[in-house]
Structure formats: C-alpha cells, structure tokens
C-alpha cells in the first residue's frame, strides 16, 4: 500500500500532466505551447520523485536531474525555433505555420 504522500504526489503529477497536455492542444500561441510542455515535463519529473520515495531509492531524483537538463536544452532550441518562426511568419500562431501540409 503506497504511503499517502506518494499517492498525493502521483495524483498531482497526473493533474499537472493533463493540464500541460490540454495547454499544448488548446493554446495557439507557440510561447504558451512551450510553457505547457514545461509543465508536462515537470509532471513527469514529479511522478519519478514520488515513485523514488515510494521505494526509498535515489534513482527518481537522479532522473529528475536529467529531465531538468533536458528541459533546459529543449527550451533553448525551442525558443530559437520560435524566433525563427516569428521572423518567417510575423506571428506566433502555431496554426499559421502549416505550409508542410500534404
């Protein structure tokens, strides 16, 4: 039986993940999409930490550090892409950048 802390942590992670996913799907502004992605990443990180606490292992926190590093890199690349997109389209609307349709 997991401890209440683990259970609450996992529930919070699920809520955060769902919020993030909803943001990615609903928001049209690319900056907000990126921010929602960050929320999803952090939700996944919270799930790892909760699970690590459940089995008294440091692995969960180690993975969270990896996720942090990856999130930093992702933001760097993502913002560069957002800038390039803005130069191209003069807008931050994700739906406006649809020239690659089949």
């Amino acid at each position, binding site marked *: 039986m997991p401890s209440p802390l683990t259970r609450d942590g996992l529930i919070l992670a699920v809520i955060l993940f769902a919020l993030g996913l909803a943001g*990615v799907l609903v928001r049209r502004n690319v900056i907000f999409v990126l921010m929602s992605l960050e929320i999803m990443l952090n939700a996944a990180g919270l799930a790892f930490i909760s699970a690590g606490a459940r089995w008294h292992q440091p692995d969960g926190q180690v993975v969270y550090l990896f996720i942090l590093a990856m999130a930093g890199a992702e933001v760097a690349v993502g913002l560069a892409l957002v800038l390039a997109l803005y130069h191209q389209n003069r807008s931050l609307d*994700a739906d406006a950048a*649809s*020239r690659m*349709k*089949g």
Partner: protein
Amino acid sequence: MLDWLWLIPALPFAGAALLLLAGPRLPRAAVAVVGVVSVGISAVLAGAIAASFLMHPPAGAFEQHLWTWMAVAGFQPEIAFYLDPLSLIMILVVTFVAFWIHLYSAGFMAGDEGYSRFFGYMNLFVASMIVLVLADNLLLLYLGWEGVGLCSYLLIGFWYRDPANGRAGQKAFIVTRAGDVAMAVGLFLLFHGLGTLRIPELLARASAEWPAGSPLAIAAAALLLGGALGKSAQLPLQTWLPDAMAGPTPTSALIHAATMVTAGVYLIARTHTLFELAPPVQLAVALIGAATLLLAGFSGLVQNDIKRVLAYSTMSQIGYMFLALGVGAWSAAIFHLMTHAFFKALLFLAAGIVIEALHHEHDIRRMGGLRRALPVAFWTFLIGGCALAGLPLVTAGAYSKDWIIASTAPHRALWICAIVGVVLTSLYTFRLIVLVFLGPMRTPVSKRPGYAMQIPALVLAVLSILGGFDRGPFRTWMASVFPAQPERPEIASQIAASLAFLIGLGLAIPYARRSAVSLLERFWAAGWGFDWLYDRLFVRPIVWAARIDRADAIDSIYRGAASATRSAWHGLALTQTGKLRWYAAAIAGGSILFLAVVIFL
C-alpha cells in the same frame, strides 16, 4: 603462348568495363587509348597465337578450360575456348579489322559527346564476337551471339536524340530476335537429342546417331539456320540491315565487316556436319543465299544513300557466302568472309571520310567530283569497290568470289544466279563511284580527314588487294576442319565472272547518268516491299491485338493494385494537415491507446 588465348576476349571486355563505368570521368585522350589499345593488343596476341599455332600445331585443336559455368544434373556448360584453324582465322579477321576500325573511330568520333560510351560499346561488341567465335559449346556461343545483338542495338541507336535512330536499333534487335528464338529452340532440341552442347562432341554424336536426312537432324539444322538468317540478314529476316545504317559509320563498318553479320556464316560453318546430315536444309541455305544476293543486288541498284548501297551490297555478299555454304564449299565461304571483311570495312571507312567531309551528307545525288578533293578516299574507295565488284586478277574479292562461283558450277541455276549477281554488284558499285567521285562537284568539302582516319583505310586497301592472292595455304589449313572438296576447274567461271564484271562496268556510266525512276525501281528501292509486307503481316495485327486487349483480367489486377495505392495515398495525405496541434493530439491519442492496450490486455 596458346595459354594466353583467354586474354583475347578479356582485353576488349576489360576495356569496355572500364570505359562504361568510369568513361565520363576519363580525359578524351585516355578514352581513345583504352578503346583502341585494348583491341590492338588483342590483335597482336591473335597474331602471335596464330604464329605459334602454325609452327607447333596441336593435335586437332587447342582447348582452354577456364571454369564451369554451371552444373545442373548432367548439364555442365563450361566457359571454355576452342581454337582450331576455323576459329583462328575468324579471331584474326575480327581483331585485326576491328583494330583498324577502332583507330579510325578515334578520328571519326572526335567531336562527339558520347566518346567514351561509343568506345565502350565498340569494345564490348568485339569482345562478344570473339567469345562467339572461340566458344567451345553452343551455350557460350549463344552468349556471345546475344552480346553481339545487344551491342548492335546500342550502337545503331547510338545517336538516340533522334527517335528514328532508336527505332532502327529496336528493329535490328527485334528482327534478329525472331531468328534467335529459333536458334534457342534448336539448342534445346540438340541437347535433348544428343545430351551435350560441346561442339566437337555434339557433331561427332550427331553423325554417329542420326542418319542423313533424319527428321531430328533436319529440324535442328533448320532451327540453327533460323538464327543464322537473322544475324546475317538473309531472306526473310533481312529487313533490319538497311535501317541499321542509322548508326555511326564505324559501327556500320564493324557490323558489316568483322562482327554481327558474319556470325551466321560462322555458325553454319562451325556446325557444318549437322547441315550435311540435313540435305534439304543445306539446299535451302543455297537457295536463300542465291535469292538474297539477287534481291539485295537489285535493291542496291536504286538506293540514293551511300551507306544503304553498301548495306545492300553486304547483304548480297553474305548471300554469296550462304550460297557457298549451301553447296558445301565451306572453305570458299570462309575465304570470302575474310576478303569481304577487308574490303567492306574499307568501303565503309572511305564512305565515312566522304560523309564527314560533306557535313554528314548521305545522299549520293548531292555528291560528285570528290576525286580531287579527297584523293585518299577516292583511291581507297575505288580499290574497295573493285574488290567488291570482283575486278579480275587484281583484287582479293575476285579470287574469293570466283572460288564460290566455280563451286556452284554443278548446279546450273545457282551458277547463273551467281553470275547475274556479279553484273549487279559491278553495276551498283561503279554507279556509286561515278556519282560520288566523278562529274561536277555538287557540295563543297568542309573538312579534311586526319591521319587516324586515312591510315586504316590505306592498310585495308592493301589487304583488299593482297588478301586473296594465294589460297593454297588457306585450303590446306582448312582441310583439317572441313571435309575435302573436289578441285573444280575454275577457268570457265573466271571468264564468265570477268565478262559479267565488264558488262556491269560498261553499263554503270550510262546508268548513273540517267535520272528517270520507273515504278519497278521504286519497288526495288523500298527493298522489294518487305517492310510493307511485314508491317501488314506482323506489326499491325500485334498492335491491334494489344489495343483491344488493353483491359483484360490480368491487367485489372495490376491496375487495381495501382489504384488502391493511389487512394491510400490520398487518405494518408489528408492526415498531413501541417497543423502542429493536430500532430500533438495524434501523438497523445496514440500513446493513450497503446498504454490502454498494454494495461488492459
């Protein structure tokens, strides 16, 4: 020395491989060197092997086994070469004439953009022909046979930008293919009946197991004859040869002199035992030869394209060879093959000089008076023409042709055909010379030939005169290959042929000057209507059948597959909306689906 035999086909083949794979990246000079030298070394090797063969003749024949091609339950064709006096004389002629043609091409094709492609194909052509000649079994011979056919297609359609050239190449390929199919069936029959395709064994078994005139022997010989008719452009498969003039002139020289059209004559001479077992087929060979030589002679009289005249003359000279084969004068046929290779290569090379000097003008009515402008072309063409027409006592062509005519003496009708053929040959040859080189000049000369083009013509001119003088050694040499033939007095035939030559020569000048064209002449000019007939008989019914058969059941399977693919493409293309959020939704939905499958199943 004889062990180096394999190098003779290997060198041109290696040259072809190098030129076709790396040709465009080589400098032009290197291309010419690779193309010419590979054949040149082959020719030198062939000469050295011939000398060694003559000085220390091996018992019977020299055989070289390289490796076993395949081995399937008793069927074991080998890559092996068989050198006897017949194949020796053939490789000498092929490599030697081909070398001079290659040297000439280095000058003739100098400005062409497909320089390396051209030499690659030419080398492959020579290599295939050598394989054909040296082959120890009929399957390897067939490989060379098809290689020659392929290269003729590639070279006739060499200038592929003009669709007419491509069509001429296809015609050559398809018409000879009709004969090749017959030959393939003949090989099946021979293997089925005799259990081997090795030529010496096959011939020995055939004469041991099949009585003369047995149906199997007749069928096998007739099927092989079919193949020979296609390759050698004899009636009724002769229609491709005049159209083959679409290729570059050195190609025509190679096809007509050293390779391709002589293959049929060689095949029949090689398997002569089989034809002796089938007297009706042998008689058919003689009749076809006589018919072709007359038909081609009449067509040659009225052509206005310099190369088409030469094409019809080749057809008619090969007809003489078939005539000789048909009456059993095997050595005479091979002798004429050799002299014909010299003078016909010479005629094409000289014609090529003329054609290039006049800016690719082929029409002899617009030529004339080139005697002073192009002296080398004039004198060499004159020598070649005299050899072709059979100027008595002097030229090689006269000796070889007289031998054939004398051999036909027991068959009065064939003999008369042969003599009439001499009149025709002399008539169209000198009409050509009068129109092209004498009279007023009609087109100015724009380009003089270089040494690379003149020297081969001069060498071949010398051979066209000296090549036929003494046939005593040739006769003794061939005695080990062919059955002995009674010596016939030739003097009557020689006198008749000389008279025929003079009649043709005398008629040529008034004939060349006239301009009216009768209906009969237009019929001859169209090749006796064979193209028209085949178009009605074969081409149109097949095109018609293909058109009504456009939507049959089998086609609809493939068409269904194609349309299913197309609608799948339409459906999948719809999902590519270009909208980022739809992709993200699809990824999320897909992940949820997979997780659900993993958890609940």
